[in-house]
């Protein structure tokens, strides 16, 4: 039982879209004739999580303890009407936003970090390890492991590590050890460093390092995005949104979110995919990482070292190294398989936004709704504004997922690029 009145809004179950997809989700692939990289997951991922990864169960019960933690970290997150933004844009329809930045760690990432840490603890695991790009996932992992008394370690993409010392400080306060990646702690990290001592790092490399560390030390690897089980956990965003809209007597016509690995977007929209009403779903990516526009729908590795299985997804190539990091969380080369499948089928459309437009959108949103959103979420706002500007008279109800706050990313406002 939860302590507040939020019992009604926080769902009892997560939703898994796999049994409801319009066609089968391609399985992960392992092309090694000796050892299966799929089977390897048994060594680094809690059993319950792995079961959820491959299940066809439409609903997975949220353990009571996890629901209580959800409440503690700020769930349900607010769903609010953006009246000032509507006015500013002269929009004749309604705009709502779901604000994941209201969680304690400032983004949706905590939604999956909590159950993953919970299952690890339940299975007697004492240490967890992961990677982080922008630092949001690392922060979520840091808090979740603190809550469950687990030791934790985060490989942080080097450019972020250098540019975001405060992120590192937060993780340290929660008790997490943070290492810049590529690092000399893993053989993969050393091999990358031997080619370029000043390698800026990438999510793909950091994932490889974390996985290698997990395999070597017997610790558990925390999955930040992309995987089905993560998206199932993130469905809490969409399930709450649906309930909150229902309470307000509203229904969405258009849903917009940003895509890195695809977890906040998929979690937001998947509970609505099966609805009979036609809802436009727009996945916003960084134009610098145009996975849906320029990527290929193919089997590709999750990580740069190719330790983990290959997934069928839109990908710019597992070796993809983005050059700048104003929205570190969107810099991943691929996107979750179920999301990729729905983009391929045209159920979900995509939009690519340039940094300048994102910065403008973030300013507009701060000055109208008061929230300085994360640069990643700025893409969702920018795509929504684009949509509204070209459909001013449409009267449609638009719901934007604001995946995080941007209070740790203020640097982007001082170095505007042209």
């Amino acid at each position: 039982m939860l302590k507040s009145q939020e019992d009604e809004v926080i769902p009892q179950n997560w939703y898994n879209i796999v049994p409801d997809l319009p066609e089968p989700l391609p399985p992960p692939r392992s092309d090694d004739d000796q050892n299966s990289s799929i089977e390897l997951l048994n060594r680094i991922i809690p059993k319950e999580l792995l079961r959820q990864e491959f299940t066809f169960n439409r609903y997975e019960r949220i353990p009571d303890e996890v629901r209580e933690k959800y409440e503690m970290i700020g769930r349900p997150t607010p769903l609010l009407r953006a009246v000032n933004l509507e006015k500013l844009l002269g929009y004749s329809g309604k705009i709502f936003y779901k604000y994941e930045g209201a969680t304690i760690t400032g983004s949706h990432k905590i939604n999956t970090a909590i159950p993953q840490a919970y299952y690890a603890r339940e299975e007697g695991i004492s240490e967890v390890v992961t990677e982080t790009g922008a630092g949001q996932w690392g922060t979520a992992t840091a808090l979740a492991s603190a809550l469950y008394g687990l030791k934790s370690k985060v490989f942080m993409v080097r450019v972020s590590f250098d540019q975001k010392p405060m992120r590192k400080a937060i993780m340290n306060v929660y008790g997490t050890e943070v290492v810049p990646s590529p690092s000399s702690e893993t053989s993969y990290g050393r091999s990358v460093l031997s080619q370029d001592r000043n390698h800026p790092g990438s999510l793909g490399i950091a994932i490889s390092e974390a996985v290698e560390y997990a395999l070597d030390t017997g610790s558990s690897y925390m999955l930040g995005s992309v995987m089905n089980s993560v998206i199932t956990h993130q469905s809490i965003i969409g399930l709450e949104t649906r309930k909150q809209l229902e309470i307000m007597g509203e229904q969405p016509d258009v849903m917009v979110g940003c895509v890195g690995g695809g977890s906040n977007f998929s979690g937001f929209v998947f509970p609505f995919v099966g609805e009979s009403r036609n809802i436009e779903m727009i996945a916003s990516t960084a134009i610098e990482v145009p996975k849906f526009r320029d990527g290929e729908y193919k089997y590709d590795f999750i990580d740069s070292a190719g330790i983990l299985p290959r997934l069928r997804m839109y990908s710019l190539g597992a070796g993809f190294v983005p050059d700048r990091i104003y929205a570190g969380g969107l810099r991943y080369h691929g996107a979750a398989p179920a999301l990729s499948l729905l983009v391929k089928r045209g159920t979900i459309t995509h939009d690519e936004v340039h940094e300048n437009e994102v910065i403008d959108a973030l300013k507009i949103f701060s000055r109208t709704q008061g929230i300085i959103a994360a640069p990643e979420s700025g893409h969702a706002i920018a795509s929504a504004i684009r949509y509204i500007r070209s459909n001013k008279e449409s009267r449609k109800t638009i719901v934007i997922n604001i995946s995080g706050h941007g209070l740790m990313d203020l640097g982007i406002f001082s170095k505007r690029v042209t």
Partner: protein
Amino acid sequence: MNIIPYFTLGFPDDGTLQAAVRSAAENGIRMIELGFPSQDPKYDGPGIRKTHAGNRASMDAFDPSILSILREHGISYYALLYYSEIHDSLDRKLSRLKELGFSGIILPDLLIDFFGESREVILHIQAQSLELIPFFTQATPDAVISDVSQMTSSWIYYGLQPSTGIIVPLDLASVTQRVKALLPGRDVVYGFGIRGTEDIKMLRSMGAYGAAVGSLFVKYLGSGDVESISRILSEMEVAASA
């Protein structure tokens, strides 16, 4: 319950495979799956992948005595192949399979990689009077299971694991529930990751029509140890009928 061994034609060599098939026949099997080698056995795990690697057997070039042994014992044989390998010359390949006496075919990649054309392909196969054995996995959506099963009346192949021969945690009880709900009254053969008599007993208690066993045999085939294959099959037959 049926124990349904799987062998890849041409692996490891004609003599060993013949001996293995003969021992399976003598152990009382009633159905068997025979795989045709693929250049890219994409959804197979390490065990089965080894049986495909460098294997040059094909529909037009494999040891025909394998099929004679099966016919002698009245065993139904089913072809397991990747649709990607046959879609270019579908009619010729289907009529070849028919001519060779196969009862049906299993195409693990059809619904995954060729979903858009799968309906047409199934009808086409049926028009050649071959049975298309539906192949479903944990990731096959409910509606697809219902639609495809309604197009067919044969037994159904249900892959329990994400690929052959590997094991990740699985909730068998909910699989049974799902199969009951979506495939009422249908004969269901479970495969992937079946490693011993305990699994057979479990599947039998779930009301399975059969268990497909393949990866388990690969290492014995590789070392020419047909005796172990025979022993495993006989133990499994006991567990299946106990």
